[in-house]
């Protein structure tokens, strides 16, 4: 430990407070008992779709397209997920199938 227990505790609490701040701020700015501006309602309706796209990209941010394995295991994993989902419409099956395919790839072919 570089920090003393006391310093560590303060650091942890500060990080916790900042995290709560980012999560609670929208609800503090637009409370239930006041009408939410139309523009904010609109953002609330479209953001889930845009943010899910962002989250996919966010998960893949560490991939390098110019060095081996060029994101190939991720591409195959995602193809498996999408294919299984379109085929059986079963969320758990497609997540499990895609993840297992990816794990096999990174532990064997691309290890």
């Amino acid at each position, binding site marked *: 430990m570089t920090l003393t227990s006391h310093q560590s505790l303060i650091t942890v609490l500060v990080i916790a407070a900042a995290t709560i701040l980012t999560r609670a701020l929208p609800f503090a700015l637009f409370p239930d008992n006041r009408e939410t501006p139309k*523009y904010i309602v609109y953002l609330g309706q479209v953001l889930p779709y*845009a943010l899910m796209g962002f989250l996919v990209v966010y998960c893949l941010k560490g991939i390098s397209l110019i060095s081996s394995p060029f994101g190939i295991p991720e591409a195959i994993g995602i193809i498996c997920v999408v294919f299984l989902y379109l085929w059986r419409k079963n969320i758990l099956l497609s997540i499990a199938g895609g993840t297992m395919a990816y794990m096999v790839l990174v532990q064997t072919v691309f290890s």
Partner: protein
Amino acid sequence: MQQKTKGLKAAFPYTIPIMTGYLFLGMAFGILLNSKGYHFGWAVLMSIFIYAGSMQFVAVNLLTLAFNPLNAFLITLMVNARHLFYGLSMLGKFKGTGNKKPYLIFGLTDETYSILCSAEPPESMDKNGFMFSVTILNQFYWVAGSAAGALLGAVFTFNAKGIDFVMTALFVVIFVSQWQSQKKHAPAAIGIAVSVTCLLIFGPDHFIIPAMGLITLVLTVFKKHIETEAQT
């Protein structure tokens, strides 16, 4: 009490992918924190009070640097800025959740957000109870995983390399199912296109905030277009 058990049972199937991801990522976090000299109480403390996956990995790093709370505060705001947008899109859903609301807000991680905005609770079930159950189950997995990782550490030998792909798979599935359920694809397409563009321009460590800002901007500029498209 019986009502609560019923709620947890109904919510459980929706949280299975998160359970897998959180148990393993939580363990990874516990092991990493333990390797820096922090015993398992610290891992549990952080997973209960911070409860933000990627930020906790950053926090491990902060704990190894010189003491600087202001820096820790600012870094956290930047890493977690995306949560502001999750909150904005949950304003409607969390309306009227009463005494459950503070915890729903506290527990709104990336993964919990993805489930809450995609899953519809079973008809027999109270919507608020369902959301609360999903949130608390997810945090339970995360805390349990962190504690196990910090306790067992190196004892754990199963080759779990690549298990973190479960989160990518979860987001991809939700993205596809949302895409199919909607007539308008512009918001989803904007999310992907803007994020990729910002990733290429700013790099993996600095693209989150520009991406959030630009997504909001583009959605605002095309507001009229997206709204009319939705009505047809």
